């Protein structure tokens, strides 16, 4: 089939499920068909030639909207391509649309989007997870094989787990953040969703690597990730943190993760007990550092240079204050307030400086653990997808659902979530594999071997692939 015809079909399918799922904020028919025609004309063998991809709406694609799920950027269009997007286009990929998300990537359920909640394709009464819920639902519903999301504390891995697909958070510095709207700069990463791990490997190989436009992107060699998916994980040492498989875990999740450990042993992997003594402090550290950085990063949204401005303010200060009150939603305001508080005069040492020290301890826990194992295994999330509205009144309960994912962002190490089974009520459960710094190939190889040997038995109720 021609690339143009194929992309047309994908755009049709995106439109057909969007009424039900609300996964796309924009479906870019005209631009996508132009890119498809260009890919078709080109005679080269670009690695992602004609591959449709969806992009989270906080990553810039030239000429397309970049709302970040917020009223304050509801009319904003990007002036340039993020480096990851530029590299995808150069590799022949076709951007089919921008996906829904929690406002400014702050949330674990996609319910903080100013443009409505995304529905989980497995059960439309449930959340898809967040903050990259739109990208996860777009892949899980079979519209696209791969999508970009962003990660600050689990925003790719947790929705991947809730939607029964694979999701990768790379090492900090592996993928350029140029063109990713900043939330918490020292924790933010662009991440990748795939229908399977192989899809992720193909995209990662294209977008990874040093970029002069992002001073935090590191000059580290990028391996051929697809070639690394050999299926051979014989002798791989899988670190198990016994304290993390226990209290607070949904019984179905616990049983499925324990089964997954046995499954990995059948493939030749060797479980090794390890400890991460400071992991329990991850959420507390995260909500200090992430909100502090967010309060600073989001200061730029003030109604002067772009975006929404409140009408008829009497003076400049009133304009700033009303623009930000009317432009931001409740969760974003809550986090800006918390971040402003922890950085305010007299509190800096007690909160922010303390959190940076505990963060260093968490990072050294990982360095220590990787002396005796090749990957660390946990559940991705303590529960399966919860019902829409269920956790809205209790922000702390929502934050605690990130307990297994935040430490990888704090330490900077890579981690992947891969489906490992279904709960008794038929909802997907994700297995997390955390790797050593720059060890994406290692965790992708293990995850790929797992999903090939033990594929998920079941399909979402909304599926058009």
């Amino acid at each position, binding site marked *: 089939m021609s690339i143009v015809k194929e992309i047309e079909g994908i755009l049709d399918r995106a439109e057909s499920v969007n009424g039900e799922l609300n996964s796309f904020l924009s479906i870019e028919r005209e631009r996508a068909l132009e890119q498809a025609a260009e890919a078709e004309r080109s005679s080269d063998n670009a690695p992602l030639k004609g591959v449709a991809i969806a992009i989270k709406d906080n990553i810039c694609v030239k000429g397309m909207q970049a709302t970040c799920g917020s009223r304050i950027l509801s009319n904003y269009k990007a002036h340039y391509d993020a480096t990851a997007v530029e590299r995808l286009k150069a590799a022949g990929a076709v951007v089919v649309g921008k996906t829904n998300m929690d406002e400014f990537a702050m949330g674990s359920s996609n319910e903080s989007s100013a443009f409505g909640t995304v529905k989980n394709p497995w059960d439309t009464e449930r959340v898809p997870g967040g903050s990259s819920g739109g990208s996860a639902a777009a892949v899980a519903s079979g519209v696209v094989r791969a999508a970009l999301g962003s990660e600050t504390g689990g925003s790719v891995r947790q929705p991947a787990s809730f939607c029964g697909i694979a999701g990768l958070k790379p090492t900090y510095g592996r993928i350029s953040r140029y063109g990713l709207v900043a939330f918490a700069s020292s924790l933010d990463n662009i991440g990748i969703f795939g229908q399977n791990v192989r899809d992720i490997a193909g995209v990662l190989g294209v977008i990874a690597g*040093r970029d002069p436009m992002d001073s935090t992107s590191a000059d*580290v060699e990028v391996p051929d990730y697809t070639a690394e998916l050999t299926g051979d994980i014989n002798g791989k040492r899988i670190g198990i943190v016994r304290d993390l498989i226990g209290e607070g875990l949904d019984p179905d999740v616990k049983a499925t993760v324990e089964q997954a450990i046995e499954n990995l042993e059948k493939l030749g992997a060797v479980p090794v007990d390890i400890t991460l003594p400071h992991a329990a402090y991850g959420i507390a550290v995260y909500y*200090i550092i992430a909100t502090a950085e967010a309060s600073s990063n989001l200061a730029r949204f003030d109604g002067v240079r772009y975006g929404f401005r409140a009408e008829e303010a009497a003076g400049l200060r009133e*304009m*700033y*204050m009303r623009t930000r009150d009317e432009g931001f939603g409740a969760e974003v305001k*809550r986090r800006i307030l*918390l971040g402003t508080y922890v950085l305010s005069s007299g509190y800096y040492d007690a909160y922010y400086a303390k959190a940076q020290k505990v963060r260093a*301890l968490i990072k050294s826990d990982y360095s220590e653990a990787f002396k005796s194992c090749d990957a660390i295994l946990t559940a991705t999330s303590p529960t399966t997808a919860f019902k829409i509205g269920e956790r809205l009144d209790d922000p702390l309960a929502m934050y605690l659902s990130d307990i297994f994912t935040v430490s990888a962002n704090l330490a900077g190490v890579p981690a992947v979530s891969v489906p490992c089974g279904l709960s008794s009520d038929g909802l997907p459960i994700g297995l997390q594999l955390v790797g050593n710094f720059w060890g994406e190939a290692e965790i992708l190889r293990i995850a790929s071997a797992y999903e090939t040997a033990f594929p998920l038995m079941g399909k979402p109720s909304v599926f058009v692939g």
Partner: protein
Amino acid sequence: MDVKHVAKLAHIAITDEEAAIYGPQLAGIVEYIEQLNALDTSSAEPMLGGLTAEGEATKTIRADEIRPSFSPEEATGQAPDPVAGHFRVPKVL
């Protein structure tokens, strides 16, 4: 936490109703994060940013050369109130 005062520092004009909702929620979160105080961190050097050792070693300096950038029209074209290549704002005084 004096929520109204913090909101003023953050340039957000929250209403009394919002303050009444955020106040207890933020107090609960602050109480939760204060568990860190129980931890001895006297031997830890604080992490500054998220860089890995390889990231720290990466050369980030480039030649100081003029490169193309956005035109004034592009830079001001999406402003709520652009005037002749400038950003207009409500009066300051």
